[in-house]
């Protein structure tokens, strides 16, 4: 029989038992819908985590000093403080693949403006900070290299600080705030960046030239904690890393065999780590949903077995007038696949709908990918073939004489 005729036979068989066909389909619909919705939620979560990580800046790398060693006791990473401001200036001068580099001196301070006050952190950074973090002031300007060199008392406010000290929508450029009783002139306000991947409010910050912060708040130490740098492009990250490494090794006079006394962390490492963990979550959600698809498949097998038993006489008639085993096999297999495919298609619709409802009511981000829809269709067809095969095979092996005699 041609495939078209087999398909017609399958559809008319389904038409005869509408209730049964739709209940069988329901198993597949729920299974596929669950897979689609769960994967959409998982991928949505992944996408939003990645977006949060990207707020740090896309080409960013972080350089940490190595560990200190005091009489056999190893300190943690960054405890050595062996990278100096001079190292940073050397990197800025010598490394062509580095777009910007800044030390960060951070200090927790109480800030006062008029009768308002606020506790926040002041960060001493270089003038290339806006390039590194892809974060330029929305109002006013960032401080210049000149400001850094002469340690001017100017600052740029994060949105949270500006709002808490002055209220929303007020012009703050040119105002002066007092940071630990030192007056700082506000020259810019940064646009809102939101929370970081760790959940910290990135807008709760005051930025000032690192020279100023170093002198006034960090005890004039030349030792730097964390250093941020960025490559000129995503493709140049590796090169930038190599160049920085080379400069630091030379300046720290490290021999061929000696290990680095610093660590360079890439932004992409962090996002890969996050992707891996959210990938595990997606797989977990998907496999839980996959179990329900499996149950749906068993439902198909169950119904197909009943259907074969019910139609033994029909099978006998068909065989007597010339149907071969493979014709009968094809007939029942196509029937199972049609049920599961239609169920799969409806399931995709329901899954997409469910994902939309979840994202609207619970506020979770969801992302429906084309690949998960294609996967849903393929998977439901596979379920139909896999669970339809045994009943169909059983039907095809019937003996025509017994089948004709069956009551």
């Amino acid at each position, binding site marked *: 029989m041609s495939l078209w005729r087999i398909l017609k036979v399958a559809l*008319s068989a389904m038409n005869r038992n509408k209730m049964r066909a739709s209940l069988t389909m329901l198993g597949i619909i729920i299974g596929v819908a669950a897979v689609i919705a769960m994967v959409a939620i998982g991928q949505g979560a992944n996408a939003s985590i990645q977006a949060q990580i990207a707020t740090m800046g896309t080409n960013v790398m972080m350089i940490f000093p190595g560990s200190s060693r005091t009489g056999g006791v190893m300190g943690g990473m960054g405890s050595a403080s062996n990278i100096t401001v001079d190292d940073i200036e050397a990197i800025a001068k010598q490394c062509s693949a580095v777009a910007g580099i800044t030390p960060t001196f951070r200090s927790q301070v109480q800030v006062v403006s008029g009768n308002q006050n606020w506790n926040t952190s002041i960060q001493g950074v270089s003038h290339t900070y806006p390039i590194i973090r892809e974060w330029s002031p929305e109002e006013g300007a960032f401080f210049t290299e000149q400001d850094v060199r002469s340690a001017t008392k100017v600052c740029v406010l994060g949105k949270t600080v500006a709002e808490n000290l002055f209220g929303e929508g007020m012009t703050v450029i040119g105002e002066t705030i007092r940071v630990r009783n030192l007056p700082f002139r506000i020259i810019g306000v940064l646009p809102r960046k939101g929370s970081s991947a760790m959940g910290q409010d990135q807008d709760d910050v005051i930025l000032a030239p690192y020279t100023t912060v170093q002198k006034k708040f960090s005890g004039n130490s030349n030792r730097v904690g964390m250093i941020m740098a960025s490559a000129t492009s995503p493709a140049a990250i590796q090169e930038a890393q190599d160049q920085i490494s080379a400069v630091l090794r030379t300046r720290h006079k490290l021999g061929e065999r000696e290990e680095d006394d610093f660590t360079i962390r890439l932004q992409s490492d962090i996002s890969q780590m996050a992707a891996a963990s959210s990938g595990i979550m997606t797989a977990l959600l998907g496999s839980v949903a996959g179990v329900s698809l499996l149950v749906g498949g068993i439902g198909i097998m169950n119904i197909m077995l009943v259907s074969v038993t019910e139609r033994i006489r*029909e099978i006998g008639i068909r065989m007597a007038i010339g149907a071969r085993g493979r014709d009968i096999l094809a007939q029942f297999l196509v029937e199972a696949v049609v049920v599961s495919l239609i169920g799969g298609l409806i399931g995709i619709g329901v899954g997409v709908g469910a994902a939309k409802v979840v994202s609207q009511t619970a506020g979770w981000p969801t992302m429906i990918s084309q690949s998960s829809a294609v996967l849903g269709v393929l998977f439901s067809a596979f379920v139909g073939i896999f669970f339809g095969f045994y009943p169909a095979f059983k039907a095809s092996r019937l003996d025509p*004489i017994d089948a004709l005699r069956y009551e």
Partner: protein
Amino acid sequence: MTPVIAVRNLVKVYHMGDVDVHALRGVSLEVNPGEFVAIMGASGSGKSTFMNIVGCLDRPTSGQYFLDGVDVSDMDRDERARIRNRKIGFIFQGFNLLSRTTALENVSLPMMYNRIPAKEMKKRALEALKAVGLESREDHRPNQLSGGQQQRVAIARALVNTPALILADEPTGNLDSRTSIEVMGIFQRLNREGRTIVLITHESDIARYTGRVVRFKDGHVVHDERIEQPHDAAAELLALPTEESPVLASAPAAS
């Protein structure tokens, strides 16, 4: 002339647990083209086993079977399915039509397994329905048809692939006597048109309409006799004191 059926020393043994049941104990028989043969015998005589083997539904334990000149004794399942489709038209006691399927679709069924194009399939199915006098019932389902009409649909189905042999297993077993004569009339007409028909029955009333009676007993052929003057079903039907049959009215006059 090649015989339609030629069996030699046909033996069939069923193994029922420890017991061997000898259903056929060396049957030899020939049926020539154009013959109308009744196979008779009590239950257990081996006639059903013989019919299953002749119908290529089963294989003999030993012996040979040539159908239309082809040795089919050792064919596998698929080959036998093909032979059944092309060479044999089955008619059963219980009609064995597909329920919830129209007369036209039922008649088309053998052609679906014979890769006949849809257009020709419909044409041939309609012709076959016309030959049994059911041209106006093509859209009726089996449950909308009387027993006699259902059997006529089954006969039409047996005809569509123009088989070498029509094999009817107790075709009148579920019909009243009048309808039985009607159906036998159709067989007689088909036989006059040149079809070879083998009919299994246990009623001698029915066997009278055929041209040859073969009796089975205990797995042997015990009797093989030609009937010189078979009864004419069409004439008998006209003699019955009820309404005329539309089928036989359209049949050509008996010679």
